[in-house]
C-alpha cells in the first residue's frame, strides 16, 4: 500500500501527481470545504459543538471548487486559523458541559494524565476524524502528546483537548488523503471516504467504516448495498445541495453587491433566500419528485419567501395552506407567467449581472459554461466597453441595442454571438431579478437562438435548454468531476459516455446518476504512478 506523503508547513504538496494514465486519472488530495469541516465536527461531537469554520475564498477550476480544492494548500495564516479553530472545538468537547457525553471514560485523576482513558477517547474520535482507524504509531504519538500536556497543565482534560486539537490540525483530518492499492484502486477506507463525501458531503458513518473493514466495498454487491443505503439517507440531500451549490457558483454570492439606489429590494435576506429558493426547487424536483433533471429549466413550481415575493412582485404569505406559520411557501407560476425554471431565479439572473445593470453577456456565458460545459473565451484586454456600460445613452435604450453597437467591433462579434442571444432573453429580469418589460421606455426584445434553435422569451429558452443534448451530458461530466476532484482524464471518456447514455436511458434521474458514478469501478481507479 502506498500512501501519498504530505509536507505540512507554510504549504502542502501532494507527492507524485505528474503521471497521467491512459485509462484513469491521477490521485488528488482535496482540502475539506468549510461545509465538510462543519459536518464532520457536528457528526463527531454534535451540533452544539459548532465550529463556525470560515476558510479563505477558493478559486474555481473546470467549473468547480471541488476541483480546485485538490490544488489548495494551507498558508501560514490559515494554519494559525485551523489551529485556533481546533483548540476552540477541543476545549468545548472536554468542558464540563460536554465531557460526560463525549468522553467515554473517566480518568483516575482529573489532575493527571490517564493514558488508557486518553487512548480510548482519542482513537475513537481519531477514527471518525481521519475517516480510518489510527495506526499504532499515530495513536501512541497522540496519547503521548495528551499525557505530556496533562502532566504539564496538571489537568487530564486539558491534556485531552491538546491531543484532540492535534488530531484536528493534522493533514489527515484537513485533507482528504486517499491511499492506493497495488492494483491501482483505492483502499477500502479511501473508498468509504470518497463515497461519503460524494453522497453525504461528510465523513463515513460507522456502518460504512465497518463495511470497508470487512471488505464489502470491494465487491459489486456490497458496494451497491452501501450506495443504496446512503442515497436513501436524509444526508444525501446535503450532498446534492453541496454539488449544485458548487456547480451554480453560489459561493459568488459572498462577494455579490448591488447598487442600493437601483435595486433597493436586494436585501441581505434576498441574497440568502435566492440561493435557498433554487436549492429547494432542485431538491423538490430531483429528489422528492424524482423528476427529469432537464425539468429544472422549465418547472413552474418553486418555493418563495415574503422577501423574494417582494423582489418578484408576487404574493407570498407567511403561512401554509392550513394557515400554519411558514417561512417558505410552494408557489406555482401560472401558464402565462414570464418565469419558469432556474434560469429565471434571482440566484441566476442577479448573480450573473453587474451591480447596477443586467449583463446579457455574463448570463449567456454562465449558461454556456455552467449548464452546457462550454468554454467561452475571456474578452481581449483592449476592448472598449463604453457603449455597453452606458445604459443612459438615449441612442441605445436597451441592452440589445447597446450590445449591437458594441459588437460592430470585429474582435467582439464572435464571442457575443455565442453568449448574448440567451442573455438577452433573460433581460426582462433586471439586475436584481425583478421582472420588467421595458428598459428606458423601450420594449425589451427577448427573442433569439441557442445553437440554431429559436426561442421567443425566457420560458422558451428554458424549453430549448431542456431539449439541448448538451445539458444532461454536461451534468454527468460535472458530477463525475465533482466526485473525482479533477477533470476526467482522456482515458475516462468511455466511462463518462456510458454514464451519459445510462442517464438518458433512465429518464435523467439525478439520484440514479449519483448511484451510477458511485458504483462505477472507474470512480475508484487511479492512474499508476511513474
Amino acid at each position, binding site marked *: 500500500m502506498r500512501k501519498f506523503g504530505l509536507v505540512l508547513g507554510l504549504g502542502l504538496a501532494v507527492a507524485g501527481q505528474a503521471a497521467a494514465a491512459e485509462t484513469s486519472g491521477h490521485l488528488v488530495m482535496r482540502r475539506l470545504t468549510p461545509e465538510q469541516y462543519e459536518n464532520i465536527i457536528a457528526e463527531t461531537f454534535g451540533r452544539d459543538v459548532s465550529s463556525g469554520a470560515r476558510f479563505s475564498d477558493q478559486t474555481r477550476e473546470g467549473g468547480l471548487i471541488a476541483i480546485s480544492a485538490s490544488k489548495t494548500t494551507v498558508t501560514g495564516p490559515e494554519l494559525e486559523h485551523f489551529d485556533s479553530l481546533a483548540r476552540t472545538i477541543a476545549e468545548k468537547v472536554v468542558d464540563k458541559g460536554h465531557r460526560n457525553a463525549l468522553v467515554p471514560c473517566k480518568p483516575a485523576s482529573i489532575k493527571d494524565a490517564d493514558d488508557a482513558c486518553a487512548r480510548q477517547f482519542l482513537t475513537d474520535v481519531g477514527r471518525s476524524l481521519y475517516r480510518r482507524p489510527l495506526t499504532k504509531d499515530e495513536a501512541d504519538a497522540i496519547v503521548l502528546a495528551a499525557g505530556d500536556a496533562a502532566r504539564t497543565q496538571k489537568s487530564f482534560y486539558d491534556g485531552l483537548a491538546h491531543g484532540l486539537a492535534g488530531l484536528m490540525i493534522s493533514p489527515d483530518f484537513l485533507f482528504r488523503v486517499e491511499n492506493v492499492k497495488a492494483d491501482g484502486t483505492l483502499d477500502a477506507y479511501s473508498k468509504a471516504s470518497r463515497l461519503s463525501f460524494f453522497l453525504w458531503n461528510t465523513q463515513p458513518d460507522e456502518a460504512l467504516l465497518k463495511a470497508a473493514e470487512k471488505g464489502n466495498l470491494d465487491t459489486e454487491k456490497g458496494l451497491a448495498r452501501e450506495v443504496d443505503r446512503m442515497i436513501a439517507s436524509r444526508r444525501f440531500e446535503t450532498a446534492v445541495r453541496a454539488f449544485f451549490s458548487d456547480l451554480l457558483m453560489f459561493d459568488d454570492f459572498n462577494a455579490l453587491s448591488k447598487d*442600493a*439606489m437601483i*435595486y*433597493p*429590494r*436586494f*436585501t441581505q435576506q434576498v441574497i440568502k433566500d435566492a440561493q435557498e429558493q433554487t436549492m429547494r426547487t432542485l431538491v423538490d424536483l430531483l429528489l422528492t419528485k424524482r423528476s427529469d433533471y432537464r425539468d429544472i429549466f422549465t418547472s413552474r413550481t418553486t418555493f418563495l419567501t*415574503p*422577501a423574494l*415575493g*417582494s*423582489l418578484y*412582485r*408576487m*404574493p*407570498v*404569505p*407567511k*403561512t*401554509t*395552506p392550513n*394557515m400554519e406559520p411558514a417561512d417558505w*411557501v*410552494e*408557489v*406555482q*407560476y*401560472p401558464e402565462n*407567467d414570464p418565469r419558469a425554471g432556474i434560469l429565471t431565479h434571482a440566484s441566476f439572473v442577479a448573480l450573473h449581472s453587474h451591480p447596477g445593470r443586467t449583463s446579457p453577456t455574463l448570463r449567456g456565458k454562465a449558461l454556456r459554461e455552467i449548464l452546457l460545459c462550454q468554454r467561452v473565451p475571456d474578452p481581449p484586454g483592449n476592448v472598449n466597453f463604453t457603449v455597453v456600460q452606458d445604459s443612459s445613452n438615449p441612442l441605445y435604450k436597451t441592452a440589445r441595442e447597446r450590445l449591437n453597437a458594441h459588437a460592430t467591433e470585429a474582435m467582439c462579434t464572435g464571442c457575443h454571438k455565442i453568449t448574448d442571444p440567451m442573455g438577452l432573453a433573460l433581460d426582462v429580469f433586471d439586475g436584481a431579478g425583478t421582472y420588467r418589460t421595458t428598459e428606458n421606455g423601450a420594449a425589451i426584445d427577448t427573442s433569439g437562438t441557442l445553437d440554431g434553435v429559436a426561442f421567443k422569451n425566457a420560458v422558451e429558452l428554458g424549453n430549448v435548454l431542456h431539449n439541448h443534448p448538451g445539458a444532461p451530458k454536461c451534468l454527468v461530466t460535472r458530477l463525475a468531476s465533482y466526485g473525482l476532484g479533477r477533470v476526467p482524464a482522456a482515458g475516462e471518456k468511455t466511462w463518462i459516455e456510458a454514464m451519459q447514455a445510462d442517464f438518458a436511458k433512465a429518464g435523467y434521474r439525478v439520484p440514479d446518476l449519483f448511484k451510477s458514478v458511485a458504483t462505477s469501478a472507474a470512480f475508484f481507479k487511479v492512474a499508476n504512478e511513474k
Partner: protein
Amino acid sequence: MRLVRGPLYFLAVASVLCASGAHAETRGFVIAQFFPAFHSQEGDCAGGMNLNTGDQYDIGLVQAGYDEKQVAEWARKAEDKALITSFRDERHRAIRDRATINGKKVSAWVNPQATPDPNLNTVTSKFALGFDLDGKEGAAGFENPMTGEKGVDNQYFRALGCFTAHRGSYSDRPATWSYMWDIVAPAMPAWLMSVTADDFKNGAATVSFYRAREHIERDVNNNVLPDLTFRIDPDLRSQVSFKAEIKDGVVSITEHGNLHAVWGEMVLLTDLRLGNTHLRLSLRDDGSADGVLGGYQPWKDTISDGYRSAMGADSLGEYWNIRKLADANPDPKTGANQDISVAYRINAVPAFLIPPPQ
C-alpha cells in the same frame, strides 16, 4: 394553498370585503408613512414660535409656585452633562408634579386638566392641509394651498403648528412623529389599505382599511419594502370600507363614515378613530399612493397618557391648545367639544393583501 399571481389574487380580497362591479380590480397597499398633515410656513405664528422645552418647563415651574432662583439653578444643572438628569432627579419631579388636586401635588402627565393653561401660541396662517369637514367656511376655516378648497378644518394643526417639534409640510414629517413612527412602525402590525374600482382613472371606487398580522419590512435604503404580502387581521374592529370616487386618478371618499384602526403599539396613537372621514389619495404610476386622510378625532386620543409621558416636552401646552381648539361633537352635558378636526398624511406602497380565513 397554491398562490395565484395578479388580479385574481386581489379579487379574492375584493370579493370578501368590497362590494364592487364584475370587472373590479383591487389594489392593495401598506401604509409606509403616516403623520399629521401640517403646512408650516414662515410667519404662520403671529405670536411667535413657542419656547423650547427647557424654557417652557422653567415658566411652568414658576407658574406652579417654585422660586425663580431655584428654577434657574435646576436649569443650570440640567445643562450640566456630568450630572444625571433622570426622571428621578429633583427638577424632573417638580416638572412632573406640577398638577394640583385638592391641594396635593400630583403628576401633570396623568392629570393635565389640573394644571394651569400656559396659553401657548397657535397657528394664525390662513393655509392648512385637510378638508372642509363641516361645510362651512367659518372664521376658523383654512384654505387648502394644494386644492384651493376653502373652509378647511384642521384645528389640530392650529393647536400644534407653533411648536418646533411639530413643524411639517406635505412632504416633511414633523420631527416628533418621524422619530416615533420610525421606532414603532417596524414592530406594530402594518396598516393596510385597498382601493377597488373598475377604472382607476375615473369612476366609483371602494376604499378599505385593515390591520395586518405582519409588520412592515424595510429595503436596503430603510424605506418600506413594497410588494410584500400581508394577512388581514380577522379582528373586525380594524376593518372598514368607504364608498369613494376616482377623478383623474385621485381617490376621494364620498360617504364619510367612521374609521377605526386598532394600532395598539403606537405610542403616538394607540387607536385611530375618525368621524366624518375624508380621504384624497393620488394613485401613482409606480403603484404607490399618497394623500391626506382627515376627519374629526376625539381630542383626548391625540394626546394620550402614553404620549404625555413619552414626549414630555411642552405636552401640557399642547394639551391645552388641543382641548381649547376642539371643534366638534359637543358633550351633551357640558357642551365642551370632544373631537378636533385633523388631517394626516398617508404614503402607501403596493402590497399583496390576503383576506382572513372564512
